[in-house]
């Protein structure tokens, strides 16, 4: 028995040594750290990049923008490419946490559809290259809902009590209430937020639960009639071969979200980071990636190819809501010091 213990101990120590030796045996290549959402990339694409450019990639994942922010900001994480969402990008830019990109190194940027350039959070498009985008909408079960789903009101309809799922995401759920009341999803008025809070409190007894990714399974299982969720989830549900679930973007307009690639100010490999970003924006690679992840692409060429090869997907509202609705959409911005107003609403809502 003692012998086994000794053997295991030695083995573990060797493993530990190997783990701590930085980049041992990998030669004089550069290593970049990429920080992305979970399940948001086709891993083969990373391998392809590594082979083509002889640059090593350390790939890490996070679950929320805020988790990523904490790691980035505390100086704890040294990342070269990060893929945050719109309002977080704005926050990072305001705090000087992002490097201006040298677009000479990112020629593939020309493939990005113009309507995804110069977005509100990066008006001169100096810091980011869009990755995926989508809308916030309502996923509904066609067997349980026989009226047209075209307004936020339906999520507050007592007829569906106990069959409504809202998002466990502060900005999104509060944003919906604000929108229903006709206000901006970026409202900073305490009165408007109070109204939104009252509305959400009234709604709470009707809500079965506040979920994030669990929404998909709940809907597929027929356990709820309506759910507030992102377009990407709707695409996922469709790809499961489920035809009794539909997606709609309410006529009042909604949130338009973007996840983009950016380079943190603490990066020490800016050039290699830009090479990665450029690589991801290559139409071939982008197509491969978007096919795996399922979310809507920002790349013109890739979209064209998707439309040719997968027209059923690209015609769905979850992929392309149509220009009319897009005009009535807003992008989240960073709340800055007004954050505490929202915090208060959210805590009160959950605590009730």
């Amino acid at each position: 028995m003692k012998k086994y213990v000794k053997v295991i101990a030695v083995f573990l120590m060797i493993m530990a040594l190997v783990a701590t030796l930085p980049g041992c045996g990998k030669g004089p290549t550069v290593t970049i750290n990429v920080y992305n959402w979970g399940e948001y990339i086709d891993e083969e694409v990373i391998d392809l990049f590594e082979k083509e450019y002889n640059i090593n990639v350390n790939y890490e994942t996070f679950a929320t923008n805020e988790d990523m922010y904490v790691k980035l900001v505390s100086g704890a994480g040294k990342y070269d490419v990060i893929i945050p969402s719109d309002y977080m990008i704005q926050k990072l830019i305001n705090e000087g946490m992002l490097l201006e990109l040298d677009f000479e190194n990112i020629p593939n940027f020309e493939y990005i559809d113009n309507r995804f350039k110069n977005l509100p959070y990066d008006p001169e498009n100096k810091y980011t290259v869009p990755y995926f985008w989508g809308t916030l909408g309502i996923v509904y079960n066609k067997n349980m809902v026989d009226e047209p789903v075209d307004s936020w009101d339906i999520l507050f309809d007592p007829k569906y009590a106990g069959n409504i799922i809202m998002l466990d995401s502060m900005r999104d759920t509060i944003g919906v209430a604000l929108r229903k009341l006709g206000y901006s999803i970026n409202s900073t008025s305490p009165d408007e937020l109070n109204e939104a809070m009252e509305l959400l409190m009234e709604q709470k007894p009707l809500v079965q639960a506040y979920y994030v990714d669990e929404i998909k399974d709940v809907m597929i299982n027929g356990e709820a009639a309506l759910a507030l969720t992102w377009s990407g989830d709707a695409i996922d549900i469709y790809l499961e071969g489920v035809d009794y679930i539909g997606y709609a973007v309410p006529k009042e307009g909604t949130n338009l979200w973007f996840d983009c690639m950016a380079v943190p100010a603490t990066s020490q490999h800016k050039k290699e980071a830009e090479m990665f970003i450029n690589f991801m924006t290559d139409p071939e690679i982008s197509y491969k990636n978007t096919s795996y992840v399922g979310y809507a692409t920002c790349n013109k060429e890739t979209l064209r190819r998707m439309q040719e090869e997968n027209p059923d997907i690209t015609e769905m509202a979850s992929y392309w809501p149509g220009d009319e609705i897009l005009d009535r959409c807003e992008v989240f911005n960073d709340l800055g010091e007004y954050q505490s107003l929202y915090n208060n609403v959210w805590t009160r809502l959950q605590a009730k």
Partner: protein
Amino acid sequence: MKNRAKLLAYPYAVWMAIFIVVPLLLVFVISITEGNVRDLGSLKLSTKSYAKFFDPMYMSIIWRSFYLAFISTAICLVLGYPVAYIIAKEKVSRRNGLLMFFLVPIWMNFLLRTYAWMTLLSKNGIINKFLGIFGIEPLNLMPSTGAVVMGMVYNFLPFMVLPIYTVLTKIDKSVVEAAMDLGAGKVGVFLKVIFPLSIPGVFSGITMVYMPAVSTFVISKLLGGGKELLIGNLIEQQFTVQGDWHFGSALSIILMVIILISMLFMPGNDTEEGGASMW
């Protein structure tokens, strides 16, 4: 011997100073200041975060968390003690194996197991489908407070069983035999001999279940459908979504203090024998 023996504790004392005390001091400092945490120069002393706590809403969240943790711990004790007892009474050759089989499930990732419970408990989930075979209406098992408690019991049960089991196995059999020879019935033997001797283990078990149960947040998020806001969720949100580190730190310090105080009232708190206890 005693003098030399206590030297063994000194290296750990140093470790604790660096990795437990200092970080907590950092948290405490953040709790009594306000300003941008990233810009140390902007910090100034303030009790704003503590003052914020005295809102009935937060008090009720804390109360609820302690209440649920208390119930879960009690259930863990009631369910877990018999398990420890039964396994401890088995033949020596069998019981280690049994214990290991008991532990294996908790080595599977906790998040995955919680998701699996969702699959089991949901409206059209496995349990309801099973009940449907007998024509029983689907029960609304989840999301609910009951589901959260069950989730907590499920997660922490082994931590209650292990210490009790450890202590039970080493109870001197001859003491038990002596009691029975002296005329005590089975129940008497248990109540007056076995249980009292197992109290150190019970206490360890309670400690290892109660404290994490108070600060859990995943279980309430998933099995409670996000409708059950516990102090763990609140603190987690302060450090992430809501970005108010000062308040989050204050809440943590307050939580710690309340737990320390409540441990004062715990049974089995003997420090005479050098107990594994607080105060």
